[in-house]
């Protein structure tokens, strides 16, 4: 999630975030694996029903180019359009300097979101 969150830095997870609100595009969230000790840190970029695609490293949401000021390094990712399923959100990290193969991103069930990140 560089540059927003540097490797080895600390952040707090607000586990009650989605008790009072629903996930929004742009939210930075923690996602659990088997439990809460090890989690992924990603940004929500697609909501249920949205279409997501990459063309030459540029993200398109619902066929519109998304302005992403938080992305500094951008590799030429290409990904055919896909639709975010109901009950899911599409998560992508900010560190796009790696190859697409090396980056864990995609849609996950909303129930896997532990919470939002502070700050």
């Amino acid at each position, binding site marked *: 999630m560089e540059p927003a969150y540097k490797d080895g830095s600390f952040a707090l997870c607000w586990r009650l975030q989605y008790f009072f609100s629903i996930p929004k595009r742009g939210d930075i969230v923690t*996602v659990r*694996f*088997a*439990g*809460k*000790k*090890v989690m*992924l840190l990603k940004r929500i970029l697609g909501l249920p029903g949205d279409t997501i695609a990459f063309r030459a490293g540029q993200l398109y949401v619902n066929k519109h180019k998304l302005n992403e000021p938080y992305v500094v390094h951008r590799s030429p990712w290409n*990904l055919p359009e*896909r639709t975010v399923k109901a009950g899911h959100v599409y*998560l992508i990290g900010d560190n796009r300097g790696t190859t697409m193969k090396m980056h*864990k*991103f*995609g*849609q*996950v*069930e909303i129930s*896997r979101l532990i919470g939002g990140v502070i700050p």
Partner: protein
Amino acid sequence: MNRKIVILFTILCATALFFFLLPSDEKKIRHNLELLAEYSSSTGEDGTLSTLSKARNAANRCTESCTIEFKSFNLKQQFSRNDISDHILMLKKMLPDTRFTFNDIQINFPEEDKAFINTTLSLNGKTKNQRFTDAYELKSSVVKIDGDWLFSSFTLVEFIER
């Protein structure tokens, strides 16, 4: 009267401690996971014999025919202990300085001699002078054979769909 209460209390504590320290099936399975992680890990300073021994020991924690499933790699196959040992050796060569750990371990016993495990496998290591970390959710099944719990299957849980 006080003396009797003290004696009774001591007996109760000793009994509780005995049952607490008694190795349960869950403790044995957790211990096997720790061993599997230890044998799979490499420090970069392991000699050839040590590496071979660790790979063999890791394979011996599995049943003679162990099913491994990774959907994204179109892999669902049964591996013998020799196959597993060979693959662990290849992994150690690819990741010569990597630590494996299992976290968030949940164990369920649907039957007396069978258990299902859900856990997070974390990798922390170094390749070509660059540090890396990675994590995967794993489901595994273990069976009790001659008093020993052995891994009979591993499935990678792919909860993030590109």
